C-alpha cells in the first residue's frame, strides 16, 4: 500500500517535470528568429505564387501561429482551445508538419515504436554485458581479466558513438554479413507483422544496440566493480570464505545482492545519455527512429514536428527513470518512501 502511494507520488512528480520540460522545449524551439511558414510565405511572395501564399496563411491561422507566443504555447499543449477547439498534445493532436505537409502523427508513425525498441534493447544490452563483466572484474581484480575489461570500457567511453557505428557497420557487413542501414529489410516496410519481419528487425538491431549500449555498459561495469570491491573487503566475506563456501556461491549469495541495488538505480542516470546516443546513431545509420526527423525538423524550423519529437524523447527518459526508481524501492526495503529525510 505504501508502495502504491509512492508510485502515485512519483507519477505526479513526473507529470510536473514533463510540464516544466514542455515550457523549456517550447522556448528553445521558438528561439530562432522567424518560423517555417513566414519563411515560406516570404519565399512564395518573392516568386509570385499566390495560391501557395493563401495555403500558408490558412495554416498559420489554423495552427494559431498568428497569436502571441504564450497563447501559442497554451494551445500547443492543449490547455486552452485553439482555432478548432481543444486540440493539443494532451488531446493527442501533435500538430502539423509543414516540411512534410502531413500531420506529425503520420510523419513519425512507426518511428515511435522503433525508437522505444532500440532504446529498450540498448538498456537490456547494458545489463547483460555489464553484470557478468563487472562481477568478474571485481572477483578477479588486478588480473588480466580486470585490466582488459577496463581497457575495453575506456575505449568504449572515448570513441565517439557515431564513428563506432560506422566502423562496426563496415566490418560487421564485410566479415559477418550483417545488413547495412535501416531497421528492417526494405521489402518488409509497410508489411504486416510476420516472423520473417521480426527476424529482419532483430538482425538490423545488432549493431545499433551495441553502439548505443557500449559507453553505458562501460560506465555501469566500472560502478558495479567498485561496489563489489567495497563489499568484498568486508569481514563477512572473509568469514564465508574461511568457512569453506565455494567462491561462486559466496559471490552471488550476499555481495552481489548488496552491489545490485545501485546497479538498478543507475540506469536512471544513464538513460538520458543513452537516448542522446540513440538519436545520434539513428541519424548516422539511417534508422527509421525519430532521430533523423528531429534533425530535419530542427534544420528547417518545422516547429510542431521538432517540439513533438523533443517531448517524446523527454517522456521516454522520464518514464525510464521512474521505472528504475520504482524498481529500486521494490528491491531495497531500506529505501525510505516519499521525501528524503533532511
Amino acid at each position, binding site marked *: 500500500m505504501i508502495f502504491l502511494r509512492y508510485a502515485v507520488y512519483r507519477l505526479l512528480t513526473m507529470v510536473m517535470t514533463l510540464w516544466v520540460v514542455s515550457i523549456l522545449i517550447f522556448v528553445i524551439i521558438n528561439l530562432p528568429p522567424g518560423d517555417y511558414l513566414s519563411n515560406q510565405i516570404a519565399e512564395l511572395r518573392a516568386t509570385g505564387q499566390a495560391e501557395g501564399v493563401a495555403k500558408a496563411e490558412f495554416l498559420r491561422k489554423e495552427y494559431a501561429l498568428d497569436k502571441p507566443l504564450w497563447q501559442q504555447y497554451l494551445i500547443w499543449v492543449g490547455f486552452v482551445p485553439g482555432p478548432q477547439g481543444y486540440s493539443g498534445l494532451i488531446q493527442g493532436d501533435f500538430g502539423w508538419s509543414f516540411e512534410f505537409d502531413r500531420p506529425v502523427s503520420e510523419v513519425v508513425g512507426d518511428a515511435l515504436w522503433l525508437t522505444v525498441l532500440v532504446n529498450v534493447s540498448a538498456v537490456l544490452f547494458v545489463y547483460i554485458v555489464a553484470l557478468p563483466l563487472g562481477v568478474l572484474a571485481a572477483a578477479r581484480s588486478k588480473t588480466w581479466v580486470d585490466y582488459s575489461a577496463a581497457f575495453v570500457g575506456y575505449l568504449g567511453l572515448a570513441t*565517439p558513438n557515431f564513428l563506432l557505428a560506422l566502423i562496426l557497420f563496415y566490418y560487421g557487413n564485410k566479415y559477418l554479413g550483417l545488413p547495412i542501414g535501416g531497421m528492417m529489410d526494405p521489402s518488409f516496410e509497410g508489411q504486416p507483422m510476420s516472423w520473417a519481419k521480426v527476424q529482419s528487425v532483430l538482425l538490423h538491431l545488432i549493431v545499433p544496440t551495441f553502439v548505443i549500449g557500449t559507453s553505458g555498459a562501460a560506465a555501469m561495469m566500472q560502478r558495479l566493480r567498485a561496489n563489489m570491491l567495497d563489499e568484498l573487503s568486508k569481514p563477512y566475506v572473509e568469514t564465508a570464505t574461511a568457512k569453506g563456501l565455494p567462491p561462486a556461491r559466496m559471490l552471488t549469495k550476499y555481495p552481489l545482492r548488496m552491489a545490485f541495488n545501485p546497479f538498478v538505480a543507475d540506469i536512471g542516470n544513464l538513460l538520458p545519455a543513452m537516448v542522446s546516443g540513440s538519436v545520434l546513431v539513428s541519424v*548516422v545509420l539511417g534508422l527509421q527512429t525519430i532521430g533523423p526527423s528531429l534533425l530535419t525538423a530542427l534544420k528547417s524550423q518545422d516547429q510542431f514536428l521538432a517540439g513533438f519529437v523533443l517531448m517524446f524523447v*523527454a517522456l521516454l527518459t522520464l518514464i525510464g527513470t521512474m521505472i528504475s526508481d520504482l524498481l529500486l524501492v521494490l528491491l531495497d526495503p531500506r529505501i525510505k518512501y516519499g521525501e528524503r529525510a533532511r
Partner: protein
Amino acid sequence: MSMQPDGRYIDNAPYDPAIDLSAIDREDMDASNARLVWRKFRRHRLGLISGVFLALCYIVLPFAGFIAPYTPNERSADFLYHPPQDIRFWHEGEFIGPYVYPTTAVADLENFRWSYDVDETRPMPLQFFCQGSTYSIAGFIPSNTHLVCAPVGATLFLWGSDRLGRDVFSRILYGAQLSLTVGLIGITVSFALGIFFGAIAGYFGGALDWTIQRAIEVLRSLPELPLWLALSAAVPSNWGPVAVFFIISIILGVLDWPGLARAVRAKFLALREEEFVRAAEMMGARPGRIIMRHMLPNFSSHLIASATLSIPAMILGETALSFLGLGLRAPAVSWGVMLNDAQNLASIEIYPWTAIPMLPIIVVVLAFNFLGDGLRDSLDPYKD
C-alpha cells in the same frame, strides 16, 4: 650499547637524523598539501603520462601553423583524395635523410577515381624551416616559416588529403585549436553556473534550494544531445565562425552544470555546519565572502578533478554537433567538421584516411579520463 642504571639499553653512537626511521613520517607532517598530492599523483603512472601529454598538446596549440606543412584551407587541386605518403630515409641502400617520392595523378577510368603513381626513381628531400603560405602564431603574429614543407614539385600528405585536396595532417593540427579549446570554454561556463547555483542552494537552503534542486532534476533527466541540437539550430546561419564557436561552447556548458551544482550543494550542506563557517558568520563576514574565501577553497581540488572528467564530454559533444552539421561550420576547422566528410561508408571503404581525425579524439578523451582518475585518487592525500 650500554645499560643505564634503570635497566634500559641505549645505543652509544651519536644521534644521526639521517637514519631516523620516523624522519619520513615527520616530514610528511610538515609537507604542504600540494606536495603530498604531487607525491601521490606521481605514482599514478597513467595519469602522469596523460597529464604531460595534454600539457604538451595545449602548449603546442598556438604553434599549429608552424608545425603544419600546409594551411587548413590550402587546396592542391591536382591531388584529391591522395593517400598518405611515407617519409623515407634510405634510397637504394644509401642514407639521404628524410625524403618523399613525387606522385602524379592518373585517372582510373575503371573505378572512376584518381589513383596516384609513385615515381620511385626521384627521391625528393624535405625542406626544413622553409617559407610557405602565411599563417599567424596564436592568432596575431603573422609568419610564413614552416617547420617542414613539401619539396618543390612534390607533395607532403602525411595522412593523405581530403576531397578538396587539403592536407589531413595540417587540418588536424588546426582543428585541435578549436576542438581542444571548446572544452575549456564550455567547462568555464559550466563551472561558473554550477558553483553559483550549487553554492547558493547549499548555503541559503529553503525555497531557493528547493527551486534550484527541481531545476537540476529537470535538466538532469533530459537527454543532452537533442537539446544541444535544438539550441545550436537556433544559432543564426549568418554568424561568423568565431561567434559560432563561442556560442557552441557556451551551449555545451549551459546544459552541463547540473551535475556539478549537485555536488557543490551536497558539500556546502555539510560545510555550512562547520565551526570555521560559524566563526566567520559571527565576525560579520558576508555570504559572498564566506562562500568564496572560506568554503570553496575547501574542495577546490575536488572541483579540479571533476572538471578534468567533464571536459571529454564537451569535446565529444562538439564533435557530434559538428558531425551532424549543426555545430561549427566550414571554413572553421575542427575534428568534428573534418569527420563530417567521413560520414558515409563509401569514404571509409575507399578513403580510410579521411577518418583519421577520430584518433586524436580518442587519444585526447582517454588522456583526460586518465588524468581525471589520477587527480581524483591523489587529491585526498590523507586518505589511504
